[in-house]
């Protein structure tokens, strides 16, 4: 089976949000993502690595800023100094591409209506239960002593402990978040920009992974092939 670009994926950088007018004059909120050249840096095979995947490199930097072992490998393959590497799992060993190839981004976004976008959400720091878990707030007046408190964390002597997984204040955001079906509004081949409908995780300049398929778990693929 020949593999296409849509079997793996590409990586881009979030530019920001704006709005455009649709055909009917309706306003579409869009996130703009810049997709610079994605270069295949490695192809993982079942025989060698125990799973199949495509490793993609992006975002060139000065030689000094790339980690030495990675730089040595890049130089061995005659590749530019890429600083970030990503792996895309595939069903089978990828055919038709080799290390050093630039991924055909246009082919990836051609006829693609929805795409899975994965990124890191904006870090919110240490937050209380109200913001972090949408808990309800207490009364603000009439002598209330519970304004934004979490409240009770469980029953009394009977369990005698707090159950695991009890929602509490803590670090919020800065987590990997995926949007499974982000609508692709437009792909601008000339400027290498993708317009997605609505927001996507992360700040401006944060890195986003795109894949055409939504596979929940790869565990049952190529287990003992």
């Amino acid at each position: 089976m020949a593999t296409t670009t849509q079997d793996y994926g590409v990586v881009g950088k979030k530019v920001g949000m704006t709005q455009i007018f649709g055909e009917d004059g309706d306003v579409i909120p869009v996130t703009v993502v810049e997709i610079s050249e994605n270069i295949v840096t490695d192809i993982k095979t079942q025989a060698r690595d125990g799973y199949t995947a495509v490793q993609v490199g992006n975002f060139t930097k000065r030689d000094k800023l790339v980690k030495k072992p990675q730089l040595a490998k890049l130089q061995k393959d005659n590749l530019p100094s890429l600083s970030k590497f990503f792996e895309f799992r595939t069903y089978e060993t990828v055919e038709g591409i080799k290390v050093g190839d630039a991924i055909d981004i246009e082919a990836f976004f051609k006829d693609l209506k929805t795409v899975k976008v994965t990124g890191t959400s904006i870090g919110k720091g240490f937050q209380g239960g109200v913001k972090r878990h949408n808990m309800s707030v207490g009364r603000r007046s009439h002598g209330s002593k519970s304004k934004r408190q979490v409240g009770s964390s469980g029953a009394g002597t009977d369990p005698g402990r707090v159950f695991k997984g009890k929602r509490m204040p803590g670090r919020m955001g800065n987590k990997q978040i995926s949007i499974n079906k982000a609508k692709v509004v437009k792909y601008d081949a000339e400027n290498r920009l993708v317009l997605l409908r609505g927001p996507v995780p992360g700040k401006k300049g944060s890195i986003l992974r795109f894949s055409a398929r939504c596979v929940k778990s790869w565990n049952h693929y190529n287990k003992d092939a």
Partner: protein
Amino acid sequence: MSQETLRKIEASQLKTDFTDFQVGDNVCVKVLIREGTKERTQNFEGMVIAIKGGGINKSFTVRRTFQGIAIERTFMVHSPKVVELKVLRKGKARRAKLYYMRDRIGTKKTRLREDSARIAKEFKQKLIDQESKESKPKAKKEAAAKTAVEEAATPAS
């Protein structure tokens, strides 16, 4: 850099030759309406009571009273549905938002005085533009002659 990219995307959608108008003006907006496959324009006449936003998000609100019932419609300036805008009467508004018009009833109380200063200014500007258009070729010729003289003078010195 990222802002530049966004501006570029927006710029391709902006209308460059949209009619100038101000709050207090009585305007006629031509709105595109799609009925099945047919397209036609509908006019909406009234007074601009607010201009909001900037860039691609710029919008304005038009208020009209028809048979004692007031209607307000908000339009996006750069929307492809807003085909044309005509200024029918330039009103003199002393504030940016004319929401007080909502509390007023009757044709006389919802009127604004005509902005004679603005009309005079625009008329003057029009005359100046016309004049400069006519005298432009002349000025160019004169400038060209001047540089020629200067060039002739420099090697001598």
